[in-house]
């Protein structure tokens, strides 16, 4: 028993070191707090006064900060994030289920499996601008596999578009004639034909000679044109309108962001799945489930809160990303309305903030701060939802 013979370490010194460590930790954490408070006060002082109903509901006016607002950017961010979620969540969760629950027995396949895992882990650390460049080649141009989109040319591969020739009747009302050959941009009307009113009601278009007396009935006037009238093509794009390649559009942007957050979704889902006790899997297998039935009825319900929390945090990352959007959507900030279909380009909050912050007109700098405040509030709401879900499930499992 050598211990009693040895000198004791000085207790006072040990305690002093303990105190010193505590002080260092406190300083470090208060530094974080100071930065946050400084940032918030600066933002509120600079931008707080600019947040108004008008600010939230109007769009960017060049050289007129007083009239500018963030509505299209908010709508753009929302649409981009929805597309991002729709793409990243199923793919991410599917990948995570494969990685965790379908580990192959075969050695070669298992090697591939581990390669995918290594990739997922590494992709989580890739800078987002790199994803932006990838998005430009893979989504905006699609490696030029489908040709190049030119102005005033109909894309070769498309969906969700209706085309009409538009012509004015003698009553000065527009009617629409369905298009047969979409490469014919204008037609001359020589024969009576089927057409639609602007409201979409069908009608039979009548043709009379130029100079002939017009029909007396106003209802007939509304469906009569002079022979040789010129009708020009008119595109009606539905909200899911899309063509190949995707071009600079909210769809390209959403898919690019999906790539950015995909590794995060995969990893957080994997963690949630790993947290499900193995005894539950045994119980399900013991009752004769197939692997998929086990996953669907036992693992996914138990892991769902964790998956949701991770996914919401990933969406928080997506809504704040500027770099990939600058690359994919070319930093557009001036659209005056929300994007009407998948192929439209739009401002988003981070890009608008970036654009305003470097505008020559100093008036926009304050607006930039105000937009940051709005973005922060959105982020805070999303994170609060995530925390709430976590809290509620912890509460539920304890009972």
């Amino acid at each position, binding site marked *: 028993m050598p211990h009693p013979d040895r000198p004791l370490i000085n207790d006072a010194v040990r305690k002093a070191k303990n105190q010193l460590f505590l002080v260092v930790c406190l300083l470090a954490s208060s530094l974080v707090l100071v930065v946050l408070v400084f940032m918030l006060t600066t933002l509120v002082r600079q931008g707080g006064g600019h947040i108004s109903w008008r600010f939230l509901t109007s769009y960017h006016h060049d050289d007129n900060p007083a009239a500018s607002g963030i509505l299209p950017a908010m709508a753009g961010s929302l649409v981009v994030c929805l597309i991002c979620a729709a793409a990243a969540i199923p793919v991410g969760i599917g990948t995570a289920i494969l990685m965790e629950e379908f580990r192959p027995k075969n050695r070669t396949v298992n090697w591939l499996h581990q390669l995918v895992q290594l990739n997922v882990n590494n992709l989580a650390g890739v800078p987002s601008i790199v994803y932006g460049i990838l998005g430009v080649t893979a989504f905006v141009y699609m490696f030029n596999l489908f040709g190049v989109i030119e102005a005033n040319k109909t894309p070769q591969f498309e969906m969700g578009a209706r085309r009409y020739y538009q012509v004015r009747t003698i009553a000065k009302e527009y009617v629409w004639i369905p298009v047969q050959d979409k490469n014919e941009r204008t037609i001359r009307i020589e024969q009576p034909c089927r057409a639609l009113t602007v409201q979409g009601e069908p009608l039979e278009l009548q043709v009379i000679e130029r100079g002939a007396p017009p029909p007396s009935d106003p209802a007939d006037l509304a469906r009569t044109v002079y022979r040789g009238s010129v009708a020009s093509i008119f595109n009606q794009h539905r909200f899911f309108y899309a063509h190949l390649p995707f071009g600079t559009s909210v769809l390209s942007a959403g898919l690019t962001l999906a790539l950015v957050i995909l590794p995060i979704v995969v990893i957080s889902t994997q963690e949630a799945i790993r947290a499900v006790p193995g005894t539950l899997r*045994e119980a399900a297998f*013991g*009752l004769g489930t197939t692997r998929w039935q086990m996953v669907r009825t036992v693992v996914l319900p*138990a892991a769902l809160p964790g998956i949701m929390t991770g996914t919401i945090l990933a969406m928080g990352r997506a809504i704040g990303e500027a770099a990939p959007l600058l690359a994919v959507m070319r930093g557009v900030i001036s659209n005056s309305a929300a994007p009407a279909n998948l192929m439209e380009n739009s401002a988003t909050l981070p890009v608008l903030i970036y654009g305003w912050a470097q505008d020559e007109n100093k008036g926009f700098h304050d607006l930039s701060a105000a937009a940051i405040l709005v973005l922060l509030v959105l982020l805070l709401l999303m994170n609060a939802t995530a925390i709430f879900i976590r809290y509620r499930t912890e509460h539920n499992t304890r009972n």
Partner: protein
Amino acid sequence: MNGDEEALEATAEVNVGLSGLSAIAAARAAENVPAGAARIAVNFEDFNAWYGDFQAIRQVNLKMHANNVTAFIGPSGCGKSTLLKWVNRMNDVIPEARASGKLRLGETDVLARTTDVVALRRRVGMVFQKPNPFPKSLYDNVAYGPRLHFRMSKSDVADVVEWALRKAALWDEVKDRLHSSALGLSGGQQQRLCIARAIAIGPEVLLMDEPCSALDPASTARIEDLIFELREQYTIVMVTHNMQQAARVSDYTAFFYEGKIVEDGTTNELFTRPRRKQTEDYVTGKFG
């Protein structure tokens, strides 16, 4: 899915309107397995099993009699749980686990590549060491298996749930809170729920891997009573570390040591007149 699966569904449809229990009985008939008719329910012949290079089971020959309780005893790591888990091929999830020799469940070759594990596990229920109810309601726990395997009406499912819970001696305690979470039950109740869940699909064999090791003495006594009653209908194979438990509830006992069967026979004989010194030392507590 294979042919007998289709036949199963067909029978289940014919039986709409009958109770859920008769649906299960009919399903059994469709599988050509008269319950309790075969005297030897599970038969190991020259059975060996490995985890990778480690041989966990060596040359086991063992017959388990239908409608009897067979207990596996032996020190930790002697392979008794491994042997149990081969009966319903639970070892399939472990990539490096493999086995050789013959293992028959009734007429079915369990180890055959063509054996459908899902169908096999419908015939072999399992209860685990730690109670592992799903984080669902009591009702959904018991209804899980029947819903998985049989096309049943809601009232049939309700019948089966009540029957299984009565059989597991749990009905009277929980009939007023069937739709509350199973995690709210005590450990002993949870284990009886797991037994109810296992018998709700109408298995022939029930495997129990130390079913009482996580329970207090009172709950253990209730489970033991239950096992005693359940053997009327099921062939029960249980692993236990508790010598008294093996003596109390089992009809046959097999003593394992280092992957081999040292001695097996009726529980009465093995405990009162062991043929081998090693067995005697173990059952009297001199080693183990």
